[in-house]
């Protein structure tokens, strides 16, 4: 059960979805298909390796700590296979024993910029160290924003320094979420350096309390976080983009870092049961808009699956859903 803290952030939106009967999916080249898989799932091939060694096609992780079961999977989508491009999603899962806290970060590199995987990798690598040393997630994200910005301009970044010893669990310090002061020269400089990379960023910090966990969720862009109750009820924890006007058309636009003025959204709550999922919109889109997908994901993820099954499940085939996929699931024992 999730209980919000005293002051929910602006635009809080709960999106409860009732469990529906699951349909056993058929397989397309070994992967489960949810609904119409389309032609791409059956016809797009793996493609040839790249000239230089880089991110693996798929990445899996599994942990258990403090009563949490964690499964993480990031898979290269059919689109990037088709275009001969690498995966642009990334995730990280870290744990600080001195603070009894887990930090999960999920990033979705913006596909229209060629170096976006670098942005996603930097963000998922640098944020944990910055957070553990400050215990201020918004501040740490602002520093990551600067790191990615410097990398984008070819100035490189110094590796984030790890704290020398675990710090005590004294909780995050409050800081206004407002944007930094206007800086016209910096804005002009932004225009002089066309971007080569950008990424969304969603981060969840869970700290053990007497009955479950205190949670701090911060996000920039459209990589959502969802909770799944023990009875199979989904609730979206991140606010969606403003509802599209009925006369308008779908645009797929999102906010991302690096940004001149980064204003992450933030929400705090407590959780004592069920599961929480951070994901990129390669899965989040189907979860939000397709009842059939929600039903099947409920059946799969009410309890933590075998890791390699989780990887296959994240890779489900569904027509037009061919972006990279990343999901990190945390099940509360």
């Amino acid at each position: 059960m999730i209980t919000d803290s005293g002051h929910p952030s602006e635009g809080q939106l709960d999106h409860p979805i009732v469990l529906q009967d699951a349909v056993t999916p058929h397989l397309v080249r070994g992967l489960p298909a949810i609904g119409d898989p389309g032609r791409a799932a059956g016809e797009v091939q793996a493609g040839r390796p790249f000239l230089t060694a880089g991110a693996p096609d798929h990445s899996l992780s599994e942990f258990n700590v403090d009563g949490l079961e964690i499964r993480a999977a990031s898979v290269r989508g059919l689109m990037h296979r088709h275009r001969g491009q690498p995966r642009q999603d990334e995730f990280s899962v870290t744990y600080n024993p001195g603070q009894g806290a887990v930090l999960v970060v999920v990033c979705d590199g913006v596909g229209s910029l060629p170096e976006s995987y670098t942005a996603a990798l930097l963000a998922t690598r640098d944020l944990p160290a910055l957070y553990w040393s400050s215990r201020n997630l918004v501040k740490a994200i602002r520093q990551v924003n600067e790191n990615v910005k410097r990398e984008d301009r070819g100035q490189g970044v110094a590796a984030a320094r790890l704290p020398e010893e675990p710090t005590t669990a004294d909780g995050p310090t409050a800081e206004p979420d407002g944007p930094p002061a206007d800086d016209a020269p910096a804005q002009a400089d932004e225009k002089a350096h066309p971007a080569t990379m950008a990424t969304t960023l969603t981060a969840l910090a869970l700290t053990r309390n007497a009955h479950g966990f205190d949670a701090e969720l911060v996000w920039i862009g459209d990589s959502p976080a969802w909770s799944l109750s023990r009875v199979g009820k989904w609730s979206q924890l991140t606010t969606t983009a403003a509802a599209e006007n009925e006369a308008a058309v779908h645009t797929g636009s999102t906010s991302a870092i690096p940004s001149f003025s980064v204003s992450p959204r933030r929400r705090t709550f407590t959780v004592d049961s069920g599961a929480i999922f951070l994901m990129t919109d390669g899965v989040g889109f189907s979860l939000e808009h397709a009842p059939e997908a929600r039903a099947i994901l409920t059946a799969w993820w009410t309890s933590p699956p075998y890791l390699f099954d989780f990887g296959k499940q994240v890779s489900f085939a569904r027509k037009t859903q061919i972006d990279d996929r990343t999901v990190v699931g945390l099940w509360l024992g």
Partner: protein
Amino acid sequence: MSEDTIYGSESETIEETSSVAGQVIMPFYLICDVSGSMSKDMGDLNEAARELVDKIQNDPVVNDMVMLSIITFSSSAQVVVPLNSPSSISLPNLHASGATNYSAAFTLYNDTFERDRARLRNERRKVFRPCVFFLTDGAPTDRDHQASFRSLFGYDPETRQGNRAFPYFVPFGFRDAPEPVIKSLAYPDFGNARGRWFLARTSKVGEILNAMAGMIGNTVISSGLSASGGQPQIIAPVAPSNSSMQFGDAGDFM
């Protein structure tokens, strides 16, 4: 998966739409002049249309992401290919006769897109901004085509008044199509992705239609590939390097 309107019980409706819910679609509309002056070119036009659909069908990713429709116009307009996946399209043989009523084409496209969008939304699909390719060999025989175009498609980004679902409109003119008319139809004339116009004066109409079909096919494929990565954009058509085609971007319109 049938794209037809679903009838039947509510449980059947839910089951039918659930397998397509959440799909993202880029719709493309090809509006072709089949007036009397096109009579000698219909063989080339039919062949170019077939090659266009074949080219798009051959790419499985693009075939999944886009839908195509073909509208013809002369004295009146008609939908000859309803909006559908390329691999589900059955091309009819097009025939020419009659005048060149631009307004009829614009009006039918607008009405058709609104119905298509409503149907796709009812099926819980996400619809990206439509792209229209307009092929004509002559001047409009209706006097109010500019006013029709303006009232149906015009959008003011400053005041947010007008048609927010305006199409990305790409006119292709050849033979007797007037240059100022063709240029005036390129839309939108604001923002980073402005409409583009094309004009050809060669007498080799077959080659022109072939080149135009190739350009349209490349645009559909490139745009479809951009959509599937979550960052959709219409990739403006580009004239072949060895082509004598004139082209330009939309200027002031409203």
